[in-house]
């Protein structure tokens, strides 16, 4: 496999190449013909930028960008295939000293934690690139440059194995989205500017606190360990901080990640941000960026600050629980289809946080699976919202929709698959994920798990409500029901195919992530376990719960359990 740097920088390079090509071609065309500027590439060729308008897309930078994202997707699939299920460490490591004075390395690596998120990122970006190519953008060179830079930054954040590098990429990935929303977003200029400033300040408040915390981690670890300052994750893991430092540093990191996700008290930017973003950009923002926050908990916070994580376990679980209940309730009350997706994300991310802070392998593995699932589900959901709004006279309000299934059976069935996956129907990969999360929490904190079950029920309420209000019901006043076009299918079908594939074969992700998730939560679990057993002894029902070792084989992880039962049933 080629080095990871190629995967990271390929999209950004394609964005720049596309812009240069576009400039050259634009110049050649205008000099050779002197005719009116063609739609492709020349900035003055402005078409209506509302999501409803369908200009003829496929301009030069867009096509180059598509090549880049497809290339990245191919590489990511290669890395997934190459990652053998048994490993738990890093593979394909790139390690170069970036800034020797500060001990910052340019260290990248594939682990079981990030390999599927990288796959998800490249997949969603490829889908969003196709979607964005279906219409033409004002100032296309700039649009595609930022769009591709966003992919590079997200991939960099996922693959970084150095704390400072991670923080840099984490902060950097916000900037393209700031421009993408502010320049090509929906609504009036004032609304967009307001939304973007809210978005950036909210998220950077967390990120900058994380910057201070990250630097403190490196410096304090070096002071305690007596060595030279370093930010490499594996080295930091070997030099754990004192409990007091871990606690405040944990809070700073948690602030950054919870804002990004977003979780309940810190989601203030979300409604405005979601409303202002172009849907193609929102697909990747909602599908991928929130996962980087959750990934950060799993890959950085738990291994580096196990005592902090254990200390604040209950707090985090409560935040997650409130996010689930609040997100579900508000999603149910919303009429803006986009915000239904937005608040459902709050709830889903609440489940993911819940799984992570169960602080045991089942919960963590379920969370990781659910991250992939949620990304796979929310992107097509948002794209379907855009399709629906085109059929409902440009409105994204579910009250204006209705009866769209009438002449669009394919759209209806695709939407149904996505909705059922969203509500974690048994048989979908989301069900497996949520099940494992709840199993994990059940073992850690029984009461919270029981309340969280309510979230599962509520998910079916808001997901089905969205489906019914849009597809069935009385026909809306401006509704013009028609089947999805082949071009829309180009975006939806691959995503839905992957959803179905993951439903059939979730072990693909589970087996490969097993070793890494176990390693990630091991130290935190070691700190938290005495406490959880103490709580468990107080709960009378607890002894009836089978211990993971008896239930799921020696490893206590779902994948081996699944494997075990399969082989067990086939062998006799």
């Amino acid at each position, binding site marked *: 496999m080629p080095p990871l740097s190629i995967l990271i920088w390929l999209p950004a390079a394609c964005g720049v190449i596309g812009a240069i090509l576009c400039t050259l071609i634009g110049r050649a065309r205008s000099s050779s013909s002197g005719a009116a500027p063609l739609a492709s590439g020349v900035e003055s060729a402005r078409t209506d930028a509302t999501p409803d308008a369908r200009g003829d897309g496929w301009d030069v930078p867009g096509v180059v960008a598509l090549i880049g994202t497809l290339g990245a997707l191919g590489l990511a699939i290669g890395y997934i295939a190459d990652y053998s299920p048994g490993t738990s460490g890093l593979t394909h490591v790139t390690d170069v000293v970036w800034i020797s*004075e500060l001990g910052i390395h340019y260290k990248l690596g594939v682990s079981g934690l990030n390999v599927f998120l990288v796959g998800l990122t490249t997949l969603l970006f490829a889908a969003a690139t196709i979607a964005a190519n279906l219409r033409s953008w004002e100032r296309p060179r700039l649009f595609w440059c930022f769009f591709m830079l966003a992919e590079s930054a997200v991939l960099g954040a996922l693959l970084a194995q150095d704390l400072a590098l991670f*923080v840099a990429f984490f*902060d950097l990935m916000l900037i393209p989205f700031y421009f993408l929303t502010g320049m090509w977003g929906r609504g009036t*200029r004032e609304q967009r*500017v307001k939304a*973007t400033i809210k978005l950036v300040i909210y998220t950077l408040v967390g990120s900058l606190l994380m910057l201070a915390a990250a630097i403190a981690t490196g410096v304090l670890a070096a002071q305690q360990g007596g060595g030279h300052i370093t930010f490499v994750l594996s080295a930091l893991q070997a030099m754990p901080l004192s409990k007091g430092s871990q606690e405040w540093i944990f809070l700073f990191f948690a602030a950054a990640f919870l804002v990004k996700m977003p979780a309940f008290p810190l989601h203030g930017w979300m409604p405005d941000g979601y409303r202002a973003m172009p849907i193609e950009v929102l697909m990747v923002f909602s599908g991928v960026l929130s996962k980087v926050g959750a990934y950060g908990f799993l890959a950085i916070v738990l291994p580096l600050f196990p005592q902090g994580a254990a200390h604040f376990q209950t707090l985090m679980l409560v935040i997650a629980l409130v996010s689930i209940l609040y997100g579900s309730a508000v999603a149910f009350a919303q009429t803006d289809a986009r915000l239904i997706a937005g608040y459902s994300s709050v709830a889903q991310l609440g489940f993911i946080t819940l799984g992570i802070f169960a602080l045991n392998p089942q919960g963590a593995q379920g969370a990781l699976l659910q991250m992939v699932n949620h990304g796979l589900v929310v992107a097509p959901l948002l794209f379907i919202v855009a399709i629906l709004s085109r059929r409902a006279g440009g409105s994204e309000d579910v009250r204006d929709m209705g009866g769209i299934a009438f002449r669009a059976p394919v759209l209806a069935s695709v939407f149904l698959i996505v909705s059922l996956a969203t509500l974690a129907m048994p048989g979908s990969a989301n069900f497996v994920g949520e099940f494992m999360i709840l199993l994990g929490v059940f073992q850690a904190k029984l009461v919270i798990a029981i309340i969280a079950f309510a979230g599962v029920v509520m998910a079916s309420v808001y997901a089905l409500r969205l489906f019914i209000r849009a597809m069935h019901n009385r026909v809306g006043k401006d509704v013009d029901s028609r089947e999805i076009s082949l071009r829309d299918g180009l975006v939806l079908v691959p995503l839905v195919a992957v959803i179905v594939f993951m439903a059939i074969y979730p072990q693909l992700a589970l087996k490969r992530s097993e070793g890494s998730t176990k390693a990630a939560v091991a130290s935190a679990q070691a700190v938290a376990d005495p406490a959880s057993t103490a709580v468990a002894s107080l709960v009378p029902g607890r002894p009836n719960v089978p211990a993971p070792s008896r239930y799921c084989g020696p490893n206590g992880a779902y994948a081996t359990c699944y494997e075990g039962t399969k082989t067990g049933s086939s062998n006799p």
Partner: protein
Amino acid sequence: MSLLATTTLKGPHVDFAALSPLMALLGGAAIVLLVGLLGSRWVRAQLVPALSLLALGTAAGLTIWQWNAEKSIVAGALRIDSLSLTLNLILIAGGVCTVLLAWRSLAAREAAHGEWHALLLTSIGGMSLLAAAQNTVALFLGLELLSIPLYVLCATELKREHSLESGLKYLIVGSVGSATLLYGLALIYGATGQTDFAGIDSALSSGTLATDPLTLTGVALCVAGLCFKASVAPFHQWTPDVYEGAPTPVTAFMAVATKVAALGVFLRLFDVALIEAHASWGIAVAVLAAITIIVGNVGALGQSSLKRMLAYSSVAQAGYMLAGVVVASKLGAQATVFYLAVYLFLNMAAFATILARERETSLGDSVAAMRGLGRERPLLAWPMTLAMLGLAGIPATAGFMGKFYLIDASVSGGYTWLGVVIVIGSMISLGYYLPVIAAMWMSEAPSPADAPPTTAAPTPGPAPAEGALPALAGGSPELDEDPAYPARAGAVARTQPEVALVAIVSGAAILFFGIVPQPLFNLVHGVGSALGLL
């Protein structure tokens, strides 16, 4: 007899090599002043700035020639070491940018080019002296040599009231600052009986002098005096008014060079001479830094004048850099100087863009002048965008590296809370940097109807005749410079190439050093050990 002859004839040893950068600057000032007396328009408008650039270039070359020198000169009054040489380079780079920005400015023309450039070079000479000062006398000499020309430079747009006001304000406040500092230095002399830094240090290290009330009063007055110069809150009130009123090239110079000199002397005086009293001043200066960060960033919110906004932002940045002084460590000194170098690029990119827009639109330095810049003039919009992102400390810009280094130094020095204050300041700062970016990229250019004075509007003097001329880059200076009709809305004003050059080079440097910061780290590498810090 022979003995007497040899003793009288043996003059003091003068290390001309080590003094050469300073001599190039001050000699250049004299030559520029004299050449400026020549009558020809071309000589005054073109040759004088070119000679100034030559003087600065020579000084830079001589600084690099002396790069590895580490010696005391002029009877121990000055020290040529890594710190003074590095600061020299930053100062000279700032000077070069200022000369380029001022090439066609009204200020230089009204004040007669020769005098304007001579003042500028003298001021840089004073800063260079200050950065090398080894005793309190040289310190004060350098401080006045840099300040007095600056008072005049602020007032060089002779026909604009604000400029004169700015010069007067700066003169009064600056004099108060100088007087306070002088008083403080006198008290320290009174307490220790020493004027040179090493002597003060050794006097303080013996006995209880470090906590003596006389010393502490002196230290407090020194802090206050230098805080005036570095515009550290609560001694910063003059900054917005002076920055706004001064001609833009002078503002750019003040923002960068004064900061460099003031922080340089902070490092020399506090981290060397008064290091023994660190227990007393450390926490006080740390609190001042924290207050400065908050006051500067909050003050900048909602400013519509970009120069005023950058003035408050420079107050905040001074607070960030003070964090490196507070920790009094090798890492801290290096982080401060690193940030100063970064700060040069950030500010020059921003001020060059502001200047370009001032000359092109009638909106002056208001944020509205930036509207639609991204579409119309991407080559100007990008440096400004990078400058704003860099000042806010976003990754992939040099500003991120600078903040990273400063926070690193704060945490290492046991001032973790100050590191957190720095990031809180950065958060607040987004509230005023982002609207500038939004104005550039997310709004349409102001329509001609918005711009108050157009060619149709009554303009005094021979406006119609000149307004009809094509506005070419490098066109008639009068046309470009006269404040009565700088704004020919609708006319295709092109940015002057030297201003664009400053903006683009600074912007490129922001990006380059954000990704490959190693050259800057190498530049500041010897600074900490030159000061003898751990």
